[in-house]
Structure formats: structure tokens, C-alpha cells
């Protein structure tokens, strides 16, 4: 039997609004700033440090081919430059600053993490306070909507070119270079065969 729905009188999570300051062309910058439990901090530190040498980011987060650049930074206090700044802002917790530059609306981006690598998300953010670890995805999206930094301005050198398109173009470039070298001195038939092999190899980029 179906269950009665909960009260849903609040306006639901809106689809991406126009020009919220972190969207340009096809790309979105998602910036989050969230507290981390103190006890978890050393584990997180090691994981980030390791991430530079073991290709965790590559196989986990970058495998979706829609993230251009992504960073995590953790800190506990903000710069203090003296008056008229009232005081140095010291925080009760270490805060995780996360900024990701990716293709498409952030809701689809979150789906990818929530449905494919939820463990990674829970590991990095899950020791935050009251963080709704995926799955499911909808509570996480609500959390993101509340925590996402809006406003300001966003610049991208290639706002309408996604990661897949860039990587496809790079594959075409690299394949073409090999073909130019390889094709020296070939007969027309041999060249045509080499050319068609090249096309076959890089067709995902054409």
C-alpha cells in the first residue's frame, strides 16, 4: 500500500536559475564551505595528501569526464589585516572549502556522485555535521542547495566546450600527429588504410 505523503507546502528545490553568478555557458562552479568534525581531520588530511600521488581523483571523481578543475582546501582561520577589520575570525571547526568547475547543471553532477561513488562523498564530507550522505540523492541535493555559494561572477576560457569535447579534440590532435609521421612514404592505398584506422580510433572526438 502507498504511504501518505509528508507535508510539502514549502516551495520545492528550484531548477537552475538564470545567472546565479556561478554559471557561464555550459559550465557551473559549485562552491561549498562546510564544517568538518575535528576527530576526522587527520584522516581527511592523509586522504587529500595521498590523493596527489595515488590517482584517486582520476579514477573516482574525474572518471565522469565532466569536471574541468576541482579543489579542496581546509582551514581553520581567515586572514586578519588589522583595523578596520573587527577581529580575526577563528572557527570552531576546520572548514572544507570545495570548488568544482564542471559541465552542466549541478543537480546532475550530484546525481553522478550520489548514484555512482557515494562512498567517496560520505568519506570526504560525511564527517561533516549533519551531512546527508548519499544514497539517496535528493536530501543531498537539498543540502547542496542550502550550502552552495551563490552570487558574484564566473569566468571560463571555453564556456561552451565540455571536458568530453576537449578530450576528444586532444585525441584527434594526438592521433593526427602520429598519422602525419606514420604516413610518410606510404602508397595511396596504404595511406588510406592508415587514415581510416586513425578515424576509427578517434571517432569519439569527431
Amino acid at each position, binding site marked *: 500500500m502507498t504511504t501518505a505523503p509528508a507535508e510539502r507546502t514549502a516551495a520545492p528545490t528550484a531548477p537552475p536559475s538564470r545567472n546565479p553568478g556561478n554559471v557561464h555557458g555550459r559550465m557551473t562552479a559549485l562552491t561549498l564551505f562546510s564544517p568538518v568534525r575535528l576527530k576526522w581531520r587527520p584522516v581527511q588530511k592523509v586522504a587529500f595528501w595521498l*590523493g596527489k600521488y595515488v590517482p584517486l581523483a582520476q579514477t573516482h571523481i574525474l572518471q565522469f569526464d565532466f569536471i574541468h578543475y576541482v579543489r579542496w582546501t581546509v582551514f581553520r582561520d581567515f586572514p586578519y589585516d588589522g583595523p578596520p577589520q573587527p577581529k580575526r575570525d577563528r572557527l570552531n571547526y576546520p572548514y572544507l572549502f570545495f570548488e568544482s568547475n564542471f559541465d552542466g547543471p549541478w543537480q546532475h553532477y550530484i546525481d553522478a556522485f550520489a548514484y555512482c561513488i557515494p562512498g567517496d562523498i560520505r568519506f570526504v564530507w560525511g564527517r561533516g555535521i549533519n551531512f546527508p550522505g548519499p544514497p539517496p540523492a535528493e536530501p543531498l541535493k537539498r543540502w547542496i542547495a542550502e550550502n552552495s555559494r551563490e552570487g558574484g561572477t564566473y569566468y571560463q576560457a571555453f564556456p561552451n566546450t565540455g571536458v568530453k569535447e576537449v578530450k576528444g579534440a586532444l585525441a584527434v590532435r594526438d592521433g593526427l600527429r602520429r598519422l602525419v609521421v606514420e604516413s610518410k612514404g606510404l602508397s595511396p592505398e596504404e595511406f588510406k588504410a592508415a587514415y581510416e584506422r586513425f578515424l576509427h580510433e578517434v571517432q569519439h572526438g569527431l
Partner: protein
Amino acid sequence: MKIFDHDRAGVASALTTFAPIIPGEEETVRELIEALPQGEESPFARLPQLHCSRLHILRELQYQGGGQKPDELASSYLVFTSSYDGELDDYLDTICDEIPEEADSWWSHCVAYPGTADRAAFKRYIRSHHRKTSLFAAAYPPETVQSVRDALELRRRVVDFVVDTQGLSAAELQRRFDETFAEAV
């Protein structure tokens, strides 16, 4: 370049700065940065090594509820992040060369900002407000802005070539290929 530099991913570098805003000037800065044109007209378009950057204001921290001790910020911060090619020093030089007025226009509302006119002081200011990255990852680490642009252009030419030469004889295909791409790569 340090060997174990967490601010690097291939040729790309990360800059993450938090600049305290002079109390009372938050609205001015907000209006200013939100009025900046996007795309080719953007001042950031004049920085050739810049892949992407974001400029926004952090006013308060989101309270997570539950057992969290609330954190209140006494100041607002102008947050400027960049993913750019090469060395920070060169990037800051480019900012001073290409967009000094714009940079001054928003940072002048921040406490103790020296201005781009004093280049050394400007660089010190940015470096001291940079927060070191714990982990920075890039989708195409060896590629600069220019190499990406070149690859996209080359691909366009390859697609055009494919369309133009479908159905040609092998000899004609080879002739056209040599004509078109011998110098291209």
C-alpha cells in the same frame, strides 16, 4: 617550483584567496562584481593563461544544525579563485599588466590592499591571502589554455576535411591530406 606542490595539477595551478572586505563596503563590491560582463567582454578574458576563475563574497557560514556550535563571521570576505597555467608570479604579473584597474576596483574595498601600482606589494598581498590547496585535480593536466584552443581548432579542420574527402580515391585523399595537414601539426 616545489616538487610536492599541492597547488599544481600538471601545468595548471590553483589560487584560492580570501580578502577581508572593509566593513560597510560589501554591497558596493557585490554590485561591482555582479556587473562585470561575462565571456569575451570579461576582464578575465585578457588573462591568456586563465582557464577559469570565480569571484564572489562570503558573508556568513551556513549553520548545519544538530549539535554544531554556530560559527559567526565578523567580516565578509571577497573570495577569488583561479585555475591558471604556470607560475603564480607570472599570473600576478599578467593581472598587473592587463587588468590593473579592474583588479584595483574590487580589491580596493578590502582591508590593507596595496594596489597593483606597487607590484611587489600586490604580489605579497595575494600570496598572504592565498589558502594552500589540499588537493587540486584537473581533467587535462598537461594542457594550457592555448593548447586546448589549438586542439579544438585542429579538430574543426579535421572534421571539415573528413566531410570534404568522403568518397574520394586513395590517391586524391592522400594528396589533399598532405596539402592540408603536413604543416598543421
